């Protein structure tokens, strides 16, 4: 099992296949979260992400290990960006590779859902006339 966890200034989506491919894996599943141009019908200009970096990394490690134990993954990747991000920029990349596809599909969903619940990272939305720290929806 190999885990690849990072907090970065910019997400690099071009290397993810190399990062996740593995001789024992017949499937790779990746989720990329990106900056959307609206929130509740209001135009968003950009987002700002802040992390409690050391804890974010250790929480992501815990999540990656949980996923590996549950689905028998060969490789896991979890990268999150910090700083200002413009519309369409990637902000989070998670993925897994496993012998068969169902394990990596399920694990990928778990990785992003659990990251959003637990990992100490915060986003601020910038609109034309205000900016607000996001309070997550259940």
């Amino acid at each position: 099992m190999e885990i690849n966890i990072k907090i970065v200034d910019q997400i690099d989506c071009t290397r993810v296949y190399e990062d996740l491919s593995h001789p024992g894996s017949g499937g790779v599943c990746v989720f990329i979260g990106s900056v959307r141009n609206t929130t509740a019908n209001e135009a968003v200009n950009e987002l700002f992400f802040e992390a409690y970096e050391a804890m974010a990394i250790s929480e992501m490690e815990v999540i990656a290990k949980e996923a590996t134990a549950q689905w028998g993954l060969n490789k896991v990747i979890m990268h999150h960006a910090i700083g200002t991000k413009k519309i369409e920029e990637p902000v989070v990349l998670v993925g897994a590779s496993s012998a068969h596809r169902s394990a990596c599909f399920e694990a990928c969903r778990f990785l992003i859902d659990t990251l959003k619940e637990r990992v100490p990272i915060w986003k601020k939305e910038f609109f034309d006339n205000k900016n607000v720290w996001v309070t997550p929806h259940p």
Partner: protein
Amino acid sequence: MKIHFFGIAKEIVGSSELDYSALEFPKTVAGLKVQLLEQYPKLQELSSLAVALNKKYATEEMELSQNDEIAIIPPVSGG
């Protein structure tokens, strides 16, 4: 003893860290939360307020000591 703040909690407190002297420092996580919520009533408006001790989520009854790394974790919103 230093406490670190992030996101909206940092904005409410007006600083990314506060220094407490050993005397005024609460003994437990629960005590720290009570003290902060009194001192900064706007923190009460948040849907949750967690405390991290040495980079791990802490439970209310955990005790605080001089060398702990303590952080206040408002509702997270990564991803």
